[in-house]
């Protein structure tokens, strides 16, 4: 459910940029989504298929680039990737950490003709 309104936002932004580029149609949309946002690719695709018909972006392919979560340990400074739900620093076993990557949520580019 929660992907509905974000997919609508994606579509609005895409249509806006496509019109500004005087495009006839949108072929592809390149999204960047961090794994910590909790948004699911399939749901975004599902809502996109539902919302886009009749717009300039109908039939466009969604490319979603996932950014994995990367943390920095607050105790020892070690940088590490989040593995599943494990937030332990591999070096000193402190839990948690500063998030360096994984919360991204943007439209990088669109391909139009």
């Amino acid at each position: 459910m929660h992907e509905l309104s974000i997919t609508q936002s994606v579509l609005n932004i895409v249509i806006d940029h496509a019109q500004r580029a005087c495009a006839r149609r949108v072929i592809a949309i390149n999204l960047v989504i961090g794994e910590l946002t909790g948004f699911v690719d399939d749901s975004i695709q599902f809502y996109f298929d539902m919302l886009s018909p009749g717009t300039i972006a109908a039939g466009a392919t969604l490319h979603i680039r996932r950014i994995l979560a990367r943390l920095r340990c607050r105790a020892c400074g070690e940088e590490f990737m989040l593995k599943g739900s494990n937030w332990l620093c591999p070096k000193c076993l402190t839990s948690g950490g500063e998030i360096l990557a994984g919360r991204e949520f943007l439209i990088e580019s669109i391909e139009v003709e």
Partner: protein
Amino acid sequence: MKVSVIEGILSANDEIAMQNKQVLDAHGICAINIMAAPGGGKTSLILRTIDALRHLLRIAVIEGDVASTVDADQVATKAIPVVQINTGGACHLEAPMLRRALEQLPLEGLDLLLIENVGNLICPVEFKLGEDLNVMIASVPEGDDKPYKYPSIFVAVDAVVINKIDLLPYVHFDIAAFRKLVLGMNPGVKIFEVSCETGLGIESWAEWIVQQRERKQK
């Protein structure tokens, strides 16, 4: 042809959130966005907070709900201004909804606005409303592994309220481990342990709100 966009997907929402914030700032109102999973105790915490602070601050409540008005009706019994937002199925509040709700409130006569977001731990944190503070409630029966499952909300909030601590003897919830993990994720976060059932811990939570509101006045 490739067109570079590089635009945050929620930028339109963020823009309106900023305008909401300006309206709230202009009236000196401190707005708190309260998030939790369904059943975490959002309405109970709001009712307790009203009782604890109504002699000090002029309070209003915005109730976000997918469809019903049950929570708003409960708050209305406290005889303070309350606006119900039915999201019509959406699982979070958005800035334009808050803007419409603000239009229905007597902003001139308010100090504190409590916003009950829709019960959900993923979306509410992505959609800014214009609030000053973000608070999440984690209740003891939900288990102590919430930060692993929903890290985004734990890193984004100013305070975590651990609710239903009166149930600690009956369910497994390792408060020390929970605190350690949450502080490791978000070192600046305030953690409160409360029971909205018995009122335990509400006082220090209410004191913190008063401090935050005073800080905003300066």
